């Protein structure tokens, strides 16, 4: 199995916006749905078996009411689980925190400083972690 992706020629900086590259998950043969399940709140973990992981639904943006078609698990994560108090805590690891921040905002690209505000870790630490040779959970520069 190969998870190699073309490396960016430009070293990311504090101005670089990152996002979750879902294609990375496809390429690396990892099961995104299994990983997404670990981010569900307790209530939805319990009813996970009832959720068809391939089902697509109309998701309504919490701010603009714009409708986009999303996987049902992502929709539940964004519209319910991400709104819970324990979604992001000081105990959440940096990589999981960043991943959850992207899930919560619909995967809109964010710079390290914006991520820092959301997950409470220093921007430079986030940049250092995300700009290394290894790609964590598909989190990569957005362009």
């Amino acid at each position, binding site marked *: 199995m190969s998870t190699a992706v073309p490396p960016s020629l430009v070293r990311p900086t504090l101005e670089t916006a990152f996002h979750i590259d879902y294609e990375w998950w496809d390429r690396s043969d990892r099961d995104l749905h299994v990983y997404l399940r670990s981010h569900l709140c307790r209530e939805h973990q319990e009813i996970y078996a009832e959720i068809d992981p391939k089902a697509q*639904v*109309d998701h309504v943006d919490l*701010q*603009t*009411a714009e409708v986009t078609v999303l996987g*049902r698990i992502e929709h539940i994560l964004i*519209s319910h689980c991400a709104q819970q108090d324990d979604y992001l805590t000081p105990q959440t690891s940096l990589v999981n925190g960043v991943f959850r921040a992207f899930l919560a905002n619909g995967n809109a690209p964010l710079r390290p400083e914006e991520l820092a505000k959301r997950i409470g870790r220093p921007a*430079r630490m986030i940049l250092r972690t995300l700009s290394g040779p290894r790609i964590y959970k598909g989190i990569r520069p957005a362009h």
Partner: protein
Amino acid sequence: MHLASSPASELYWGEFDVTDEDLEFIDDLLLEREVPLTKEEMSRALVAHRLDLLRVEQESRSNIELKTYVPAGEYEVGESLVFRLLDNRIGTVASIREANNPDLPSFDVIRVKFEGSDKPKEFAARFQEHVLNSPGPEAGEIESDVSPEFIQDRYGPPIARMIEARLQESADTVRIAGRWFHNGLVADINEGHLNLAEAILDVAEGGPLPTRSLVEHMELPPGMDPLLTEFSVDFALQEDERFDEVGPAGKILWYLKRLEPKDALQIPLRLVYSPKKYDRERLTDELLDLERSLDDELSELEAPEPAAATEITLPILFPHRKAGTLPLSTRLQPLFPRAYEAPRIRFVLVDGRTGDQFPGWVVRKERYVYGLGNWYSSNSVPAGGLIQITPSETEGEVVLRAMEPRQRNDWIRTATIDKGGNIGFTMLKHPVGTSYDERMIVGQIDEQALDEAWESGEQRKISPERLTVYVFRELAKLNPQGTVHAKSLYSAVNVIRRLPPGPIFAELVTQPYYEPVGDLYWKLNESEWKKA
């Protein structure tokens, strides 16, 4: 003061992007004002301009009776709607369908086409649970009656950065020392003017001189605006390789490049580091703390929180002592002048004991300060000697003090040369001129022989792994326990080859032949070494 706190305003200013129209506005601004502007000044003007546009837009829209989109509303195909959160864009409902979402109460999805866009968007309709269903100024309206200063305070820095990024792509604008100007307005400065500037700086022994001092003697055409003249001269000098801008941030000072010290133009050989890959994740918290305390300019450390610069005392690493330099570590940087663009900054070093002043150079990219060679020698500062650095009350000056400056004879670690020309270490009673860090001190018996051995480069060719073992053995034999402190190892390795703490410490924690014995001391396990 009215506060911009509605979600619409937050979204509008928080996700602000500099458009082509904004760039045209800035272009016009530079042409109209005919003075160089900083990114902050342009940002302030652009914010005020956008607020004006919002006001005009809102006034004109109030004359047209259009329905505002809310998710709870029911709509018909062909109906026109105003979308507050989308910059008040007007869209027409193209189609309506039933939503597909078993987790939510039934609702519709309207497909909306926007003026000037081929890409329709979909929105929820008959959707009761949404924040936009309670519109009004708090939720849906972008406030236009706020002061530009308020917006500037809250969103100014990212807007200013975006403006600068766009201007960098533009061929119509030029920048010098943090100010931007329209290319077309830059006055012609010819070769003759530049030759005169060179002669003036030559007479001043290279500089530094402010632009005004050059302009006075450059015989430029009369009647030009003084600020425009200075900017034009600055731009011409910047584009000419003979000149170097060496002023700290906010101050433009010129120097003749050919008269700058060689070691400020080019990194001294003693400080040259060939980066070595190592597993930084393996370093323990204690080693990371030690690394932070060592003030190595090559360490990959987080910049400290911005704070008022205060005094810092540090031991001087051997290569810096030899090169007459200081490391510009993340901790030391705030004590020295900074610049927007200048690669080198000339400033004044002051001996805190005698008041003597001498020139210093901050070399930003390679992160060192040059100009301390004579001062180290006259104060008998050894490698590992402690010096204190404090900011001066006078701008552009930095004060140095050698700690406890008096001659003493102590048993210290001393670099030696064996018959084969290899650098090694021994304990010798040696004269020292300042107090020092016992783990960092390195005495020199025969400085010339040591320089020759180093210049031959034989030991520098050894891999960092083997060099670390070699130096470890040399230090271990200097005490009966055979133990070596991580700091001593770092200091001694740097006598032979420039390496930051990270790769040296990584050797200690990754190689099986180093055994930790506590308090950052290690022992070499010879049998493991033989296996390796």
